[in-house]
């Protein structure tokens, strides 16, 4: 299969505190991660808050330069070679909170208009309005919304506008950063269905960042599970859910009360509190919360090993 986006050995640390004489402390948001997104497929990046998934998403979207490693978009190293305007348009982002991703002082028409003008700088006023109306139609919104301000729209409608804006520049890769977690349950399904149909129709590749396994199960072809800046399990969605191979993924699956029985192969629950990213545990980073941890886990080098075709895990002990 063709790879569209590839992250190689990505590292991103943020400075947590710096003192004049003491040593600088870092938040190890992304710690040497390799990741690949295939053509016309959805990779779900799953993890809890503080796992570094948003940081990784931003790095892959070309808006946050990693400290080390490279991001290749169709073979072009976007941080080394720089983003041309054309490639910039090919990678778009849908944010979690539509309240902050739409400029409150602009009408929907102007919000979509500025995206359309990127592709067609000389478009006439009337054509621009028709194009914007078409974009709204594509995300199942009424044309009347064009003349409204974001605050006149509901959360779900705003998120649809954000999706329309991303689609305006004909992207090939979309990073959707928890696009439904700020929305009500009844609206979530609508947005997921919309993303699903758009992805299929336009054959867009997508990185779907989420902590909600229900939507992940619905939308993704592949899953990467992240814990404290590292990917601990990766594979086709079906395989990861049915054949879970890392204890952290297993605890995620069992923590959802309504998770179907078939995905609860290991009834294990995590212990204690998540450690801080500033001083992550040695060895396997999950060992402090892992119910099946052994002595050797403290020294274990976390490396993804293939356990079945296209299914990788960083834990050899979950049987």
């Amino acid at each position: 299969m063709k790879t569209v986006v590839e992250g190689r050995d990505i590292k991103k640390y943020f400075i947590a505190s710096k003192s004049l004489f003491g040593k600088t402390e870092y938040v190890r948001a992304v710690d040497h991660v390799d990741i690949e997104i295939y053509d016309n497929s959805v990779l779900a990046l799953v993890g809890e808050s503080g796992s570094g998934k948003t940081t990784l998403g931003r790095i892959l979207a070309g808006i946050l330069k990693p400290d080390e490693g490279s991001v290749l978009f169709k073979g072009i190293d976007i941080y080394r070679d720089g983003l041309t305007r054309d490639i910039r348009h090919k990678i778009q982002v849908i944010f979690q909170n539509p309240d902050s991703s739409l400029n409150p002082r602009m009408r929907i028409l102007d919000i979509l208009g500025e995206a359309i003008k990127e592709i067609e700088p000389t478009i006439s006023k009337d054509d621009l309005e028709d194009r914007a109306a078409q974009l709204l139609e594509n995300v199942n919104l009424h044309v009347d919304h064009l003349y409204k301000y974001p605050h006149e729209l509901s959360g779900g409608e705003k998120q649809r506008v954000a999706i329309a804006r991303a689609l305006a520049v004909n992207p090939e890769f979309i990073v959707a950063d928890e696009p439904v977690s700020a929305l009500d349950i009844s609206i979530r399904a609508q947005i997921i269905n919309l993303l699903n149909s758009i992805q299929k129709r336009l054959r867009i590749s997508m990185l779907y960042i989420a902590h909600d396994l229900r939507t992940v199960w619905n939308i993704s072809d592949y899953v990467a599970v992240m814990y404290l800046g590292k990917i601990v399990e990766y594979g086709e969605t079906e395989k990861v859910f049915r054949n879970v191979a890392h204890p952290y993924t297993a605890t995620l699956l069992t923590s959802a009360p309504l998770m179907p029985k078939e995905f609860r192969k290991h009834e294990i629950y995590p212990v204690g509190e998540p450690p801080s990213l500033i001083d992550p545990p040695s060895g396997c980073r999950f060992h402090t919360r892992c119910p099946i941890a052994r002595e050797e886990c403290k020294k274990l080098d976390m490396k993804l090993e293939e356990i079945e075709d296209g299914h990788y895990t960083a834990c050899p002990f979950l049987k």
Partner: protein
Amino acid sequence: MEVRIEEKKRKERREKALFGQWWRIFKANRVAYVSLYILIGITLISLFADFIAPYSPYEFDIRRAREPPSLEHPFGLDEIGRDLLSRVIHGGRYSIGIAYAAVFLGASIGVILGLISGYYGGIIDDIIQRFTDAMLSLPTILLAIALVTVLGVGVTSLIIAVGLSTVPIYIRLTRGLVLQVRNMDYVLAAKILGKRDTYIIFRHILPNIASPIIVQSTYYLGLTILIASGLGFLGLGVPPPTPEWGAMIGRGREFLISSPHIVAFPGIFILITALCFNLIGDGLRDALDPKMAKYIRRGRI
């Protein structure tokens, strides 16, 4: 499928006033609303001073100096026998005009520097901020005095001096606001679309920080009137015989006990104008803050 918008609807919608509900909320604040009208009144009177003032502000009759208010001269005559009413009416032109010009100058420079400082950060930010620190270490009025001493006496130098003395406050204010807005997702979204920095600054950041800056400017209009008058009082403002309110008080102060009207009338106008600007500022602050709008009880509006 091709989507076309009905021509009629298109027109209708385009013409829909962008005027939000802020005017309604502003109007509901009676004090601010009345202040606005008083201020418009004072401004109009000063603008048309040539037609309204009963006498010339410069003609004097030294024999009738310091005459108290009478029917003929409602505000009385000043220390060399000029009609005080006419001088106050003409003086508004200078006092208010200087305030507008100075605030416009200060805001233009301060906001642009603040935008650059806040948006780009890094070394540019450091330089601008150290400059601001240095300027802010002097009280505004002292800064204005220092500048006027350098620039010399006159209307233009007064505007420049008072205007420049407000620049550091504008830089601080704007920078703080930019820092809040800079990290909003819509700014990031514009970057992801490939928009240039100048576009983002003027299209996305400035409109979202405009309200607090407008509100602050209204307060500064009141403040600059006071500063300009203060300089006039100290003899550092517009040179005589120009009728500027502060200068009028300055020259009338010797006769404060014997002829208080010479000081009182310009003083009252300075007070009213500065107060109006402040009250309008309060009203605008409430009206332009969408969060306030939500919580106002229906009964009051």
